């Protein structure tokens, strides 16, 4: 297997090398280390393109805004940085032989409409995909689930248009994906999964998806990947967005911000609702049943306020937010629940201080949160009435420190620690279940380089209070940058303890807990990656990765002979890869991206299980998008492929794969001092009614109209 992975990596590299084109560089003993900073907010600007034009050196800044040029000739050089939404900036630096020159490059926010850009710029340091604010606004996404559904390796599991949304990464279950909202895990402690439909895209500044085993950095639950969601930062923007659409959907949001003395602040809110009902007919291949979908309504309210100021050589920030919602849970079409409801609300408060200096950075963050989730059905289609509520109160503290060092090959070291206390009150758990948890984790990180090689080593020790066990996780990364390509190889481990519901669900009709359940573990994940980009009239960015990440004791709910479902441990063989390509033709205002993912996740047949793909984990998925921005118009066409899914541990009952196609047109216009954008979007233009999960009907073609209004002097423009 290892040889095949290596071979695949080499082939992929050769393809990219040929596709991306030429470049030139020379080997010199100087070095430039720098940071890209937002000139207004003094925040780090991630993923800017940085070049030393006269030397033909180009790189992309990391997620922390940092960049590095090695082997730079001595003398005076001009560093040019550019990033979507900012004006390009140039800084002159003096480089000496054998010395590291440090520089900070400030970017000023562009006041004009942005140009098309590559949507998902690779964060090469972390192997992730980042979706920035500009992309979010142009995406037409309503929820964070809509956003991450476009990321290679991610499949979002939905049960209806207004139902919960759970991200599955590389064939994992949603319980193996950690979702952090402003640094705080929002995974439900009872189910282990995070419902992305509770996070509105309009209140999000950025989303980063890190695929692969990430416990060495993030601790528990980061078995298959991490979704890092950052809320809107303070700013001076004022914006109103109104929308209507099919199925009685309506939404409105407002956001504004300003400065008071040394403080910068923003506040805003969103209300949205949808009736959600429609007449449906399942595809003939799925039984052909027809009917009317009812009890599929949804209403949500999100409110936030944030403020920050410079303090103590860093930035002191506060943020509070409330996310609440109420929705019907209509169940499967053939056994509809006309009275089942879900109510969720989350209140959270964050306080943080971030300091950045030439020597490194420091962070101290505190958070408190209360999440409540209620499920009730006074008249379920089967079994007894229920009304279960889970309330989680959480307090957490996190600190980290990073220091630059110059000893031998070592360039940077970092330490971090976090503590989290949770008090869980859940009606649905047995009386013997724990109700207070104290989780604790400490980690260390070292970054170095040896010539063109860079190395990363991370290790983390976690105490998981649910299982009362210590876990050690690691990441070892090795990168090689050439003038045209970058290669990465990483070896990682991760763990994922059982959720409270797995262990302590109060036995009810059709379900039973399993107190003997063991944690999921990825003991040895290995991944090869290659990426490249080329600037110019036709800018290209491309990459790919192949991985093997078998899961020991994967937790999956399965029925027994009485069809009582309970969680069980299964060993799973997991391997696959992703390829992606983004292109921007500046002169034509045209951009396109394309990705394909393969996640082969099969039960370990050596244990007697059938050698088949794990249920409802499509092995193949793909996404493509083309966006054209002629004048004041923006046109978007998007397609998504969801591959065949097994519905039972057999190949015999596979749901066929299906494509969906979406189109959208937006028009920028101005009235007096206001700039406005009207967007009309049609989802599933072909009327496709298939869904990932059998029995949850889709309405097929549907439309949305959205109006976005800002003052014309808004820095961000439209």
């Amino acid at each position, binding site marked *: 297997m290892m040889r095949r992975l290596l071979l695949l990596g080499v082939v992929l590299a*050769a*393809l990219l090398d*040929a*596709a991306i084109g030429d470049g030139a560089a020379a080997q010199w003993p100087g070095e430039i280390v720098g940071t890209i900073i937002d000139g207004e907010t003094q925040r780090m600007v991630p993923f800017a393109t940085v070049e030393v034009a006269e030397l033909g050196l180009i790189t992309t800044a990391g997620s922390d805004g940092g960049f590095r040029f090695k082997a730079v000739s001595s003398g005076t050089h001009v560093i040019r940085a550019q990033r979507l939404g900012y004006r390009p900036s140039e800084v002159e630096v003096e480089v000496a032989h054998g010395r590291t020159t440090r520089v900070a490059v400030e970017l000023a926010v562009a006041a004009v409409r942005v140009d098309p850009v590559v949507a998902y710029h690779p964060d090469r340091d972390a192997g992730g995909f980042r979706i920035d604010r500009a992309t979010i606004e142009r995406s037409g996404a309503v929820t964070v689930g809509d956003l991450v559904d476009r990321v290679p390796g991610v499949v979002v599991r939905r049960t209806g248009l207004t139902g919960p949304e759970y991200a599955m990464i590389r064939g994992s279950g949603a319980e193996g994906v950690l979702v952090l909202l402003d640094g705080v895990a929002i995974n439900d402690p009872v189910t282990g999964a995070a419902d992305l439909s509770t996070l509105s895209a309009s209140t999000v500044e950025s989303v980063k998806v890190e695929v692969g085993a990430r416990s060495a950095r993030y601790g528990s639950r980061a078995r298959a990947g991490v979704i890092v969601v950052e809320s809107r930062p303070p700013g001076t923007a004022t914006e109103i967005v109104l929308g209507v659409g099919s199925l009685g959907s309506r939404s409105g949001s407002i956001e504004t911000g300003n400065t008071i003395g040394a403080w910068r602040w923003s506040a805003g809110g969103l209300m949205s609702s949808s009736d959600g009902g429609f007449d449906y007919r399942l595809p003939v291949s*799925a*039984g*052909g*049943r027809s*009917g009317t979908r009812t009890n599929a309504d949804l209403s949500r309210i999100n409110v936030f306020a944030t403020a920050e100021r410079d303090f103590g050589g860093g930035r002191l920030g506060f943020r509070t937010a409330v996310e609440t919602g109420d929705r019907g849970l209509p169940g*499967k079409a*053939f*056994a*509809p629940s006309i009275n089942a409801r879900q109510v969720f609300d989350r209140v959270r408060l964050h306080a943080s201080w971030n300091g950045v200096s030439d020597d490194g950075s420091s962070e101290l963050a505190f958070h408190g949160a209360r999440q409540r989730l209620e499920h009730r059905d006074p008249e379920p*289609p*089967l*079994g*007894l009435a229920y009304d279960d509520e889970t309330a989680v109160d959480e307090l957490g503290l996190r600190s980290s420190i990073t220091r630059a060092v110059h000893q031998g090959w070592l360039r940077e070291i970092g330490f971090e620690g976090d503590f989290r206390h949770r008090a869980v009150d859940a009606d649905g758990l047995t009386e013997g279940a724990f109700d207070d948890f104290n989780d604790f984790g400490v980690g260390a990180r070292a970054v170095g380089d040896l010539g063109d090689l860079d190395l990363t080593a991370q290790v983390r020790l976690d105490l998981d209070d649910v299982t009362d066990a210590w876990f050690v996780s690691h990441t070892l990364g090795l990168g090689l940058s050439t003038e045209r390509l970058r290669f990465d190889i990483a070896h990682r481990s991760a763990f994922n303890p059982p959720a409270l519901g797995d262990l302590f669900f109060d036995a009810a*009709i059709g379900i039973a807990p399993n107190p003997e359940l063991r944690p999921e573990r990825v003991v040895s994940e290995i991944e090869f990656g290659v990426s490249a980009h080329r600037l110019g009239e036709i800018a*290209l960015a*491309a990459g790919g990765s192949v991985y093997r990440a078998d899961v020991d004791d994967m937790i999956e709910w*399965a*029925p*027994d*002979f*009485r*069809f009582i479902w309970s969680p*069980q441990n299964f060993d799973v063989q997991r391997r696959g890869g992703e*390829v992606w*390509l983004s*292109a921007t033709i500046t002169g034509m205002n045209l951009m396109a991206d*394309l990705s*394909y993912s*393969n996640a082969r996740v099969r039960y370990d047949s050596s*244990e*007697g*299980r*059938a050698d088949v793909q794990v249920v409802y984990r499509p*092995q*193949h998925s*793909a996404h493509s998008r083309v966006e054209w921005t002629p004048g004041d118009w923006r046109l978007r066409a998007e397609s998504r*492929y969801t*591959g*065949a899914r097994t*519905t*039972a*541990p*057999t*190949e*015999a*009952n*596979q*749901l*066929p*794969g299906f494509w969906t196609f979406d189109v959208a047109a937006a028009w920028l216009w101005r009235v007096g001092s206001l700039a406005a954008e009207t967007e009309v979007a049609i989802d599933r233009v072909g009327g496709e009614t298939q869904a990932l999960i*059998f*029995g949850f009907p889709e309405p097929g073609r549907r439309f949305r109209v959205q109006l976005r209004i800002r003052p014309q002097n808004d820095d961000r423009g439209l």
Partner: protein
Amino acid sequence: MKITMKNTMMAVILASVVACDDSSRLGPDIPDEAEVAVVLNSIDRTLTVFEVARPDNMFTIGVGFDGTPVTFAVRGVTAVVAMGSLPEVAIVDLDGRFVIRRAELPENSGATGVAFIDDETVLVGNPNLDSVSPVNVLTGDVGPEILVGFFPEFIVADGQRAYVINAELGDDFVPVRSGTVSVIDIASLQVIETIELSGENPGGAVLAPDGRLFVANRGRLGERSGSLSVVSTTTLQETEHHLGFDEFPSRVSFSPGGLVLVTSTEYGIAVWDSATREFVFDPFNPVTPGGNRSSAGVGFDSDGTPYALELECSEPADVFRLSEDLVVQRTIQVGTCPFDIAFTTL
């Protein structure tokens, strides 16, 4: 090699399209007029069909994307699978190896218990609606519901009548009273009698050649209160009720030699002599094919050879071909959680 962007994109698209190609039905040829065993695998939602003479000659048919099928009926080359929690029946052409059509039952009805009442019609139990529905297997048309007892779970039929076994369960799936049998006149599709049983939670039944109806009463979980009822189809009354069948006997079959084989998920197979009214193998000394103390049922081929189903629901299970004295002669691997077996000729 010079790779253009166009070529690269085409390669990716082609790769994804090729990768999406589903394999079609495969399997060996089975000779005409060959007798086959048809096994319903409940977790898989598949039918495994193997030739009785050469059990390695086997193929599998998927019957549905959802549901919890535990009962099916076979007549000729047509199998009708009641899909359990999915309110539909899958009508399968065993010769063509595919689902011909699906008949939708009412929302939330469930579908458990199915029996042919003539060459074109099956009766299907709607456990959540306390009714049965006639379904035309040629057209998929579903007729009006016929109200029976609470939670009908099993149906057997002779030429004139259908016997619907009602578990009489409440919303919490606990018996609310002793089981009943609704007797339906096939000609009029009317319930002509309801027979009270002495045992609780009846699950399976079989019609003996002499016209007696044997019903396995599962009792309550954990109470070891399983029993066997014997019903006269002449007087339409329970004539015998035998205790001692211990924990959860769910299915019952009748051997050509007059033995009643009662299968339990907890102990295996108990054998009861209907003539002497005594156990041959009691639940404390059961038949355990392959050492397995959990069985879902026993079927007999045309030669009277018994086949016992291993109740293994987490991985592919075995069917055990037994000798006359119930010793394993051959093991045949089928799908996950086999729950029912029938024999027919293709």
